C-alpha cells in the first residue's frame, strides 16, 4: 500500500510541486470531461424527447400534411398546426366508450388491489397463524409468473361463468379481476415488507386500548402505510391503464379500453395516423400527468416492482 501511495507524489515532484500539479491536470480533465458529458447528455435527452414530441406534432397536423411531409415541417410552416384530428377523434363514440372503459377497468383494479393486498399484508406482517411463512413464500414465488400462463385457463374459466345473462368472458369485471389477481403478489410483497417495519408497540398499545384488529388496520396500519400504498396505487394504476395483452384477450368490443381500440385501428397505419396519433397521445397524457405529479412514489414503485 505505502509504495503505491508514494507513486503520484514522486511524479509530482518532477514538476516542482507535489499536489498542485496533479490537481490542476485533473481539474482540466474534469472540466473537459464535464463539458463533453454535458453535450452528450443534451444529445441523449433530445433522443429521448424527439419521438414523443414527433407524436404530439403529428397529432396536431392534418392527415394530408402527415401523408406528404414529416412533422418537422411545422418549424417552417406553423400554420399546419390544427386541432382537427382531436376534434374528429373526440366525435367518435367508439373512442369515447373506450376511454370510459379504461377508467372503469383501471380505477376498480387499483382500489381492489390496494384494499385486498393491504388486508393480506397486514395478516402476513402483524398476525400469527400457522403456515404464515410458508404462505408468504408462495406469494413471493408467484411474483414472476408470466401472465401468458394464465390467459387460456382463465379464458376457459370465464367462459363457463354465465349468471343470469351476465357473461364474465368479455366483460369489464373479468378484465378487472384478472388484473387484481396478477397485481396481488407484488402488492402483498411490497406492503408486507412495509408493514413489518411498523413498531409493534404501536399495535400493542392499540390492542390494549381495546381496539379491534379491524380498527387497528384502519386507524394505525393504513395511515402509516401511506407512502407504500401510494407507490403501489400509482404503479398498479399505470400498469392497468397501459395494459394491452389482457384487454386483447378478455375484453370484447363493448368492454375494450383505449389500448385495444387503438390497436384495432392500426391495420392501416399511415392512413389512420389522424386517429392513431391523437388517440395515442390522449392515452399517454394521463399516465404522464400521474408520473410528473407523483414521480417520487412512481419511481419507488417501479424500483420495488423490479421483481415483477
Amino acid at each position: 500500500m505505502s509504495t503505491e501511495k508514494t507513486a503520484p507524489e514522486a511524479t509530482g515532484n518532477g514538476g516542482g510541486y507535489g499536489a498542485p500539479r496533479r490537481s490542476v491536470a485533473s481539474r482540466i480533465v474534469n472540466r473537459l470531461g464535464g463539458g463533453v458529458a454535458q453535450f452528450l447528455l443534451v444529445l441523449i435527452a433530445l433522443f429521448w424527447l424527439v419521438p414523443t414530441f414527433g407524436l404530439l406534432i403529428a397529432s396536431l397536423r392534418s392527415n394530408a400534411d402527415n401523408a406528404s411531409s414529416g412533422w418537422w415541417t411545422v418549424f417552417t410552416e406553423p400554420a399546419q398546426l390544427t386541432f382537427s384530428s382531436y376534434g374528429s377523434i373526440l366525435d367518435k363514440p367508439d373512442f369515447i366508450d373506450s376511454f370510459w372503459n379504461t377508467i372503469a377497468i383501471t380505477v376498480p383494479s387499483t382500489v381492489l388491489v390496494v384494499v385486498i393486498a393491504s388486508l393480506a399484508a397486514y395478516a402476513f406482517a402483524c398476525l400469527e397463524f400457522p403456515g404464515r411463512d410458508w404462505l408468504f413464500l408462495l406469494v413471493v414465488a408467484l411474483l414472476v409468473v408470466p401472465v401468458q400462463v394464465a390467459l387460456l385457463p382463465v379464458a376457459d374459466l370465464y367462459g363457463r361463468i354465465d349468471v343470469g345473462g351476465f357473461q364474465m368472458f368479455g366483460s369489464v369485471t373479468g378484465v378487472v379481476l384478472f388484473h387484481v389477481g396478477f397485481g396481488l403478489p407484488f402488492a402483498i410483497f411490497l406492503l408486507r415488507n412495509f408493514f413489518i417495519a411498523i413498531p409493534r408497540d404501536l399495535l400493542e398499545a392499540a390492542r390494549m386500548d381495546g381496539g379491534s384488529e379491524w380498527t387497528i388496520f384502519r386507524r394505525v396500519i393504513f395511515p402509516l402505510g401511506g407512502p407504500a400504498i401510494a407507490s403501489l396505487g400509482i404503479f398498479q394504476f399505470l400498469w392497468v391503464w397501459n395494459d394491452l395483452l389482457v384487454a386483447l384477450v378478455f375484453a370484447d368490443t363493448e368492454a375494450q379500453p383505449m389500448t385495444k381500440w387503438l390497436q384495432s385501428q392500426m391495420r392501416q397505419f399511415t392512413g389512420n395516423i389522424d386517429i392513431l396519433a391523437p388517440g395515442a397521445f390522449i392515452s399517454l397524457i394521463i399516465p404522464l400527468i400521474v408520473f410528473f405529479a407523483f414521480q417520487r412514489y412512481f419511481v419507488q414503485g417501479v424500483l420495488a416492482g423490479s421483481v415483477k
Partner: protein
Amino acid sequence: MSAPQDEAPQDEAPQATTGGPAAAVATGTADGGGHGGGENDVKDDGGKGGGLAPPVWLAVVFLLPALLLLGFLVVYPIVYSVIRSFFDADGAFTGADNYVGIFQGEARLTAVRNTLVWIVVAPTVVTILGLVFAVLTERIRWATVFKLVVFMPMAISLLASGVIFRLVYEQDPDKGVANAAMVALHDTFAGGGASYPGAAPRQGQGVPVRSEGGAVVGAAPVEPGRTALLPLLRVRPEQLPEKPTPAAQPPAAGPRAITGTVWFDFTRGGGGAPNAVDATESGLPGVKVEAVRDGEVAGSATTGDDGTFRITGLSAGQYTLRIPADTFTAAYGGAEWLGGTLITPAIIGSYLWVWAGFAMVLIAAGLAAIPRDALEAARVDGATEWQVFRRVTIPLLAPVLTVVLLTLVINVMKVFDLVFVIGGGDPKASVLALEMWTESFGGGQNQGAGSAIAVLLFVLVLPAMYINIRRLRQERK
C-alpha cells in the same frame, strides 16, 4: 382464541428498531422472528402483554380474498396450462409433441431465434446504457431533469410507444425521423446533391460529354474563363422538379472560373438541337460538378435551377469537368427499418428507449450508495479515473447490475406489446410471447400449442423465482 393468554407476539419487537417504514420498501426487511408456523406460539420472552393476540380465524378472514383470487387466477391456471400442454388442439393426448413443435417450422424457429436475440442483446444494452447515463449524470446539475426525461417512457403504454416508433421508423425519409436523420448525416458526409439514376450522355460523335467509370466527364479539357456544356439524356420524369426551369446558357465565366450548364437535352414532342441548350429543355438542378486536374479535384460547384454552375478559384491550366458517379446511382433513402431484416433490431431499439431509464435510476441509486472513501482511497493511491471506475466502482456495483440484468431478462422473455404493435404481424419479428397469443387467440386455434409455449415461458422464469425465494430466506436469517 387459541393463543395462550400470556403470549403477546413480543418476539417481533426488535424489528421495530431496524428503521422507519421507508427503509423497508427499498430493502424488503424481513422479520427476524418467524420460524414458520405455530412455533411462534411456544416462544415466550417475558409475557409482558395482556392476552391481546388476535385469533387465527381473523388472519384467515384478512387473507381470504387475496388467497381466493390468487388461487383461481394464478395457481390454478399454472396447473391447467401444464396439463393442457400435453393435449393437442382437439383435446387428444399427444405427449410432448406440443413442446417439440415449438422448435419446428419456419415461423416457430424464427420466434425462438428472435427471443434468443432479445434475451442476449436487449438486457445487456439497456444495462450498459443505464450505467453510462448514471455515471454521466453524477456531476451534472440538471441530473434530475435528465433522469425524468429518460425515465418518462416507463410511464406510458407500450402501445403508445409502439405508435411513436412506427412514426419514427417510417420508411420515407420525408416522413420518418430516423431515416430523415440518416439521410441528412449521409448527405453531409458523403456529399449530397441531387441524383438522377439512369441518366447518361448521348452516344456518338461530337457529344461534349462521355461516360467514364460510372461518372460523366467532359470530352474535352476546359481552361478557366471558358464555358462548358454537359447535356444528359434518359432522365426519368419523376426525378425532374415539379415545375422544371428551362435550361439557360452558361453565364460568362470570369478569370479563374469555369461556368457551364447541365441540362436534360431532350425536347418533349421532338425538336431542339442535340447538344445545344434550347429554351424548351429543362435544367438539372442540384448536380455536383467537379473540375479535375491530374486526378485531383481542384474545385466544385452545384447546379442551380436552370442547370448552370460556376466553379471558381481555379488557377490556369487544363481541367476536366466531371459529374461524380453517385449522381447516377439511386439516392440514399435511409434504412429499411420495418419489413426487412432490421425489424427485430428496430423493435429492440424502441425497447431501449422505454427501459433505459429504469436501469439508469436503479444504477444511479447504487452509485450513490458507494462509499466516497473507497473511491478517494483509490485516487490517493494514484489510480486514474478509469481505473477507479473499472476496479472499484464496477465491482461495488455488481449486485445492482445483476438485479437490473435479471429483471430485464425476465421482462424481455415476455415482450409482447412492442413486437405486436411495431412488427404489425410481420412473421420476421415474432417472438415466443407473441406466438403464444397467435396460437391461442390470434387465429391459430391451437390451445395445446399455446399452452406449451406459455409453460415454456413459465419454466424460463423459474430461476428468477428461485432467486427471489432464496433472497427472502436469507433476509430472514
